[in-house]
């Protein structure tokens, strides 16, 4: 085999008591896609941030083209041709695509002159990646998938030879994901090295040439594309024997409707939903599919009673739970797992104890007992495996997946009659996702109904009793799980309803 482009040897890194990387070695070759597979907290991102110069390793060496290199900052790494696309994008949303790309070019002057060669240089990769994207559009108006392509073009503009993608498909729709796989393969065919950090087997199956599996900060297995079954990969990822079997939810108990949503309309920041009507029976899981940004957030907030409805009503077990003022509150028997938990579900600058006590805060004594709050928090943290298990930590210090677990713990540890779950497993690995589903099914078994907003058609078709598709603020169609097929759902997601076909 040829000389590796990058060789990381015996890398170790600790954050306080946490060992993030323990004696990790890795080789990255030109012209191939290396998948770095592992659960949340396995140390994949840390390892790649070390390569990108974002962190400095406590021990070990990095060789680029056979000579030892030490990166003090991402700038050094970029000078060696290593670029990284993060989960959170670093684009200026008020500027146009072109302006973002120009500003990121090496040696960008403070005064941007739009000389033609410079513009051509800035746009050369974008034209290949997204020929239909108008570079004059402000980044604000782009979808998440388009933003990711701009971010990728930015990194490629720096003549990167090694491109690291951190969980790139976690924010994409299925169609965008397919397109990204194509780009990744074409980049590798161009002789670039691509490192794909992921916990999804679909990513690995679609485009990885080699696979390195990490667990608990160590490399536990290496494989090439076809010599492992997906079961074997999962087992390597989570550890042998730790993956349980997930029973599908019990069938509905009857047809007694407990939630009635009638002609609902609402608006949040110029996003509207209208004419939403459905009824849910006890123990029913109602999946809502759709391309993100089609009103899912407004629908969830309106159902939860957190934004005022402009028309219609939401009635849970005979009581209206819709809000008609700005100062809306959520009903006690509704569990709500919103999207983007850091913005919508936790207070970042208070500790985990109080964050976990939030939903019951109104019922606390006038002078609440700190010990009771702490005891309850510690119990929830260990039950739901929130890491690190320190209840005094500020919520802002948790990673995305652990924040998600924190919110799930708070919302599902009570006894709700209605569960509103938006992308409840986003950012979670296989084991944690299973645990969340199991929690939801537990409530379903006791008669709660669930509104489950997701983009994952496979999971929806496996676990939801009925599936609705939302497009542009309206429900395009509703279908029972047994009668659902991907083609119809996909057509609905694109906005074609039965009548218009």
């Amino acid at each position, binding site marked *: 085999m040829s000389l590796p482009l990058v060789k990381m040897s015996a890398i170790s890194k600790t954050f306080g008591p946490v060992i993030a990387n323990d004696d990790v070695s890795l080789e990255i070759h030109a012209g191939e896609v290396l998948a770095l597979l592992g659960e949340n907290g396995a140390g994949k991102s840390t390892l790649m941030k070390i390569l990108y110069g974002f962190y400095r390793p406590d021990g070990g060496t990095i060789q680029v083209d056979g000579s030892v290199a030490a990166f003090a900052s991402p700038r050094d790494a970029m000078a060696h041709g290593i670029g990284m696309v993060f989960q959170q994008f670093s684009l200026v949303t008020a500027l146009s695509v072109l302006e973002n790309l120009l500003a990121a070019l090496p040696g960008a002057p403070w005064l941007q002159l739009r000389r033609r060669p410079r513009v051509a240089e800035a746009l050369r990769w974008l034209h290949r990646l997204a020929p239909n994207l108008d570079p004059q559009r402000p980044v604000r108006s782009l979808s998440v998938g388009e933003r990711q392509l701009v971010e990728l073009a930015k990194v490629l503009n720096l003549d990167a030879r090694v491109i690291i993608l951190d969980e790139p498909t976690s924010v994409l729709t299925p169609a965008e994901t397919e397109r990204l796989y194509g780009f990744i393969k074409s980049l590798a065919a161009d002789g670039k090295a691509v490192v794909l950090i992921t916990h999804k087997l679909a990513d690995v199956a679609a485009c990885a040439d080699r696979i390195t599996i990490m667990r608990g900060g160590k490399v536990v297995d290496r494989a090439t594309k076809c010599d492992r079954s997906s079961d074997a990969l999962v087992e390597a990822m989570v550890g042998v024997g730790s993956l349980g079997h997930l029973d599908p939810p019990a069938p509905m108990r009857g047809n007694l409707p407990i939630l009635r949503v009638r002609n609902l309309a609402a608006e949040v920041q110029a996003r509207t939903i209208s004419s939403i009507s459905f009824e849910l029976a006890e123990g029913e899981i109602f999946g809502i599919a759709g391309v993100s940004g089609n009103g899912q957030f407004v629908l969830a907030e309106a159902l*939860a009673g*957190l934004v005022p409805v402009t028309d219609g009503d939401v009635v849970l077990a005979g009581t209206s739970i819709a809000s008609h003022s*700005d*100062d*809306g*509150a*959520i009903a006690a028997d509704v569990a*709500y797992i919103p999207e983007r938990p850091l*913005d*919508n*579900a*936790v*207070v*970042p*600058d*208070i500790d985990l104890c*109080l964050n976990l*006590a*939030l*939903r019951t*805060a*109104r019922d*606390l*004594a*006038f*002078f*609440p007992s700190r010990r009771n709050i702490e005891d309850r928090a510690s119990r929830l943290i260990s039950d739901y495996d929130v890491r690190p298990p320190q209840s005094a930590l500020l919520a802002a210090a948790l990673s995305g997946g652990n924040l998600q677990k924190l919110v799930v713990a708070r919302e599902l540890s009570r006894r709700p009659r209605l569960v509103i779950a938006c992308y409840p497993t986003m950012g979670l690995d296989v084991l944690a996702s299973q645990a969340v589903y199991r929690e939801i099914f537990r409530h379903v078994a006791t008669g709660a109904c669930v509104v489950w907003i997701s983009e994952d058609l496979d999971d929806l078709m496996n676990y939801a009793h009925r599936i609705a598709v939302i497009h542009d603020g309206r429900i395009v169609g509703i279908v029972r799980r047994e009668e659902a097929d991907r083609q119809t759902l996909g057509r609905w997601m694109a906005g074609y309803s039965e009548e218009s076909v």
Partner: protein
Amino acid sequence: MNGADRVRLLAACGGSAAFLIAAAIFLAAIGRPPLMTLGQMALYAFGDSYSLSESLVKATPILLCALAVILPARLGLITVGGEGQLYFGALTGTAIVVSFPNGPMFLLLPAVLLAGAIGGAFWSGAAGFLRARCNVNETISTLLMNYVAVLLVNYVIYGAWKDPASLGWPASIAFPPAATVPSLFGTRVHLGLVVGVIAALILHVGVTYGRWGIALRVLSGNRKVGAMAGFSFVRQTLLVMTIGGSLAGFAGICETSAIQGRLQAGLSVGYGLTGFLVAWLSGQNFLRAVPIAILIGGLIAAGDALQLYSKVPSASATILQGMLFVAALGARGLAGRWSSRYG
């Protein structure tokens, strides 16, 4: 000793040292012997019982105005309206005196004090209502309402309420003894100080250990999540603004009644703004505001005494006060940065 304590100690020492050096340079520059003048100031501020009592007199409205800033700050609101609330409280309290100058003390004094507190609460609550319901920035509205309140007071003392016996001097009638806030121990120190300290204690306990404090922290951290927890931003905003305003209004009517004896211009020498600075100096902590307000009160009192006895202009005390604030806030910022980098 934990990290936060170490930072605080470091900031206190560093800030004091920086202040002393700056003050010495300033005093030398205006031709006064620095060490002696500073020593004199300390004596004029806290040297004997009379100086101490005068310092406490100055500290009283500052403390109350500081509390009126700290409480909204716990909800993430930045108000600079202490001055206006103080003036408006003085105005409404005086309205009672002007209307019923001959009332019996057991009715008149409580009514006057209550009216002052309600006036301040109304003035501050109006800004709170605008913030909660119409999303008007409370810093701007409270700042502008300061001017309105001061000018309203001017309007009545030059007009309707001008005391005919005052020979053209713009002031209301003198407060009758039945409307005069009792002073303590035969000094000019009055009931306001006691109320201020008790209010600081109650607010500290309520906000630190109570459910109320949780509501304030949650709402200031993430208003949306506050709604999920069932806390109402509108209600809490009105609550903290009116409680804060009532304290500042109470300071205004106490100052009018106990110190000035009548409503007149120049009721406050920037107590509202000084209270704001004390609030920030205390790190928005109710209890820490008490000694800091007394310290600043001492500095102001010493400035007055210096002008009287040593012919140093009293403005130099204001300059020294500014130096103290800059030194203290700067030292705390630096200490915080230092500890986050090396601690």
